[in-house]
């Protein structure tokens, strides 16, 4: 038994050392190739930049180095993300002529998920029926990150399946909790605003899914959002209610003042925090009394946001802060003073 430990250890050590020796040799041998690849990339970049500067045509250098396909897709990924408009179109043509689209479609089935994900992200530049078909197939890839990347590319190409189908395939809000889903909803909002809004309003859906749908829509400042968001803020509790109140502040519609006022009285401090922030953003001077009361709230964040909100009100807020800082209760006096001090620093900045 003890001798076996010795023998196994020798065997294991020899395996490790042999593997390391092979890797060192491989590294030494591939060093020259890496140098050739760097030279190829430099020459390709030079030709491309010359083409962009002179508005001429260009051919990429001949495919000499090994590892050419990775080099080509890497270059395409870097450059296509940087450029827009005509120049972007020119580059797409160059890389398409070099066969990048076919390489990327092949990469979608690569065993290495990193390559598959990069391919799914970069195929959005090469709009064609083949690209769309390959990306749609990738929506059922074994790796969630690759599935989501394919969905995002399809959405950007305006070729995504209906939102409800995507939610089902990707299991957004349940198995798929990534915030990248917010980005996906944003890209689909122009096409299926009502559907995403209905998802946000549907109480039978997972709370996370509803929050992500609401967040994606909130930036749109669409008046249709006000009613649904107000209903969520009024009827829900906890995190979903506080986020709804936050989005109400971002929508810029002062008619939501009663909902914000109710939020300022919520038993949940997270809702009070967001309601105070929203009151400040919307400039709801009529809520200044309530905000002043919150300067003495038990939760620090509520006191802080109430002070900030009062400071940002056009009329009456600063006067309220000054009055409280001069003679209020200890806690509220300090909150008011700090809000005034912070304002003066910001103003100087």
């Amino acid at each position, binding site marked *: 038994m*003890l*001798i076996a*430990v*010795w023998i*196994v*250890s*020798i065997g*294991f*050590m020899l*395996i*490790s*050392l042999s*593997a*390391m*020796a092979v*890797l*060192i*040799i491989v*590294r*030494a041998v591939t*060093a020259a190739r890496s140098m050739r690849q760097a030279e190829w990339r430099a020459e390709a970049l030079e030709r491309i930049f010359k083409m962009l500067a002179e508005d001429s045509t260009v051919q990429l250098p001949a495919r000499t180095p090994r590892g050419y396909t990775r080099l080509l897709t*890497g270059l395409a*990924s*870097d450059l296509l*993300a*940087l450029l827009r408009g005509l120049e972007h179109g020119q580059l797409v043509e160059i890389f398409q002529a070099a066969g990048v689209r076919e390489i990327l479609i092949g990469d979608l089935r690569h065993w290495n*998920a*990193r*390559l*598959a*994900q*990069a391919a799914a*992200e970069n195929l959005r530049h090469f709009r064609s029926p083949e690209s769309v078909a390959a990306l749609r197939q990738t929506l059922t890839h074994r*790796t969630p*990150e*690759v599935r989501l*990347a394919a969905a995002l590319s399809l959405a950007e190409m305006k070729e995504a399946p209906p939102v409800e189908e995507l939610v089902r395939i990707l299991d957004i809000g349940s198995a798929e*909790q*990534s*915030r*990248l889903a*917010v*980005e996906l909803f944003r890209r689909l909002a122009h096409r299926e605003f009502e559907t995403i809004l209905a998802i946000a309003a549907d109480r039978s859906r997972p709370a*996370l899914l509803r929050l992500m749908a609401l967040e994606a829509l909130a930036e749109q400042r669409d008046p249709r959002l006000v009613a649904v968001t107000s209903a969520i803020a009024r009827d829900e509790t906890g995190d979903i209610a506080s986020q709804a109140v936050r989005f109400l502040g971002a929508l810029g519609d002062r008619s939501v003042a009663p909902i914000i006022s109710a939020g300022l009285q919520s038993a949940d401090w997270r809702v009070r925090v967001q309601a105070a922030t929203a009151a400040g953003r919307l400039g709801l001077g009529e809520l200044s009394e309530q905000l002043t009361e919150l300067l003495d709230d038990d939760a*620090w*964040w509520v*006191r*802080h946001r109430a*002070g900030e909100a009062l400071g940002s009100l056009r009329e009456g807020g600063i006067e309220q802060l000054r009055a409280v800082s001069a003679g209020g209760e200890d806690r509220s006096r*300090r*909150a008011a*003073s*700090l*809000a005034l*001090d*912070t304002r003066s*620093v910001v103003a*100087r*900045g």
Partner: protein
Amino acid sequence: MRDFLVTALHVVSIGVIFVGLVQVLVYLAEIILASRALIVRPPLGESSILWRRYGDLTPPVAVIAPAYNEEKSIVGSVRSLLSIQYPSLEVIVVNDGSRDGTLAKLIEAFGLERIERSFEPAIKHRPIHGLYASPRYPQLLVIDKENGRGKADAMNAGISLSRAPLICAIDADSLIEPDALMRAVRPFVDDPERTIAVGGTIRIANGCKISGGRVAEIGLPRNVLALTQIVEYLRAFLLARLAWSRMETLMIVSGAFGIFRRRAVIEVGGYDPDTVGEDLELITRLHRYNRERKRDYRIEFIPEPVCWTEAPETLEGLGKQRSRWQRGAMETLFKHGDMLFRRRYGRVGSLGLGHIFLVDLIGPPVEVLGYFIIPLAWAFGILAVDYLLAFLALIFTFGVAISVASLVLEEIELRRFPKARDLLVLAGVAILENFGYRQLSNFWRVRGMYQYFRGVKAWGDMPRLGLAG
């Protein structure tokens, strides 16, 4: 009497070999788990892809850097922190009662003025003397506070003052790679509900070319101790942390680079200023708190985001550091000993703390005991040669195999060392470290245990050359 001595030596030898064997089996399991974790880890991609993918979705982060007597390097360090590429970043430097000109240097270099700032008094810390900011650097806040005898108290002050939902703990004299935050924050975007802490890799910057507060070229140091620590860190991060993270029992997120959900840290009361292993203790407490409330949570390690740190190059400095780490492990183990092997704490109690119990508490003294007992007993003809061979196997041959295996993983999956010659040198170090350095390291750990039982609490100064200065 001789019979008793022989029997006792046999029993002790079998005990030493058994403990060594269990440790080796744990390391072998780590190699398998870490390999699998590296192969199937979620795709991350280049920095440009990360920005496109996550740029609009990343939560704000407050980077908190405690500084104590760092006047030589603090300005360069802060410039380096301000250059981190991240969409919404706040840099909080905590001057922890420095006795030198750390604060004055900061005020002069960044045009700081004293300000008032309201903050949530969520965690206890030593009194704050003043807060400083500058309109020229709106994302920079400097906290000047009374010395709190360690990093924990300074971190607590930083956490109290921060307003971002995520906080990033780093050492002021470390260098974070520009895209490291973007990479490290991924779990908070991909799994925002459950993720409470994420750790990245710490690498040794000695020997690297530093320019503009960044590692411009990766190289190897000439100092043998620093070289050895490179292999040691690879083993610790690429094998151990990756493997334990894979099993959801990661027990430490390094204080030199870790990201936490601020609310989660506040819930457990922040860092414990009464321990010198505050990073290990905080993670253990986060596990305890969330397990006791049956919450579904994640504490994860990601190998790609890298923070560079300066390794001690003298025996004295390294010895002090290792003894302190040992004391920290002991403090955590004894403080949370009631979690050990308790069903309520699941695999955190059995595997996570069990690993610390085996590797940090039992392992070092048993190995040191073995160095004396087994060769001597064999030399006097009391022990058969197979005992000696088994002991040598556990210490040396398995040691070499495990160290080299971590290098193999690094080369296959990460390839951060630019030259084949670097790999050759490190492979040599991975072999040689088992003959001398390993023994020294165990001696320092046993000394740390002795210090723990004697109630030593001091951090001890570690002379640094400074990376970013």
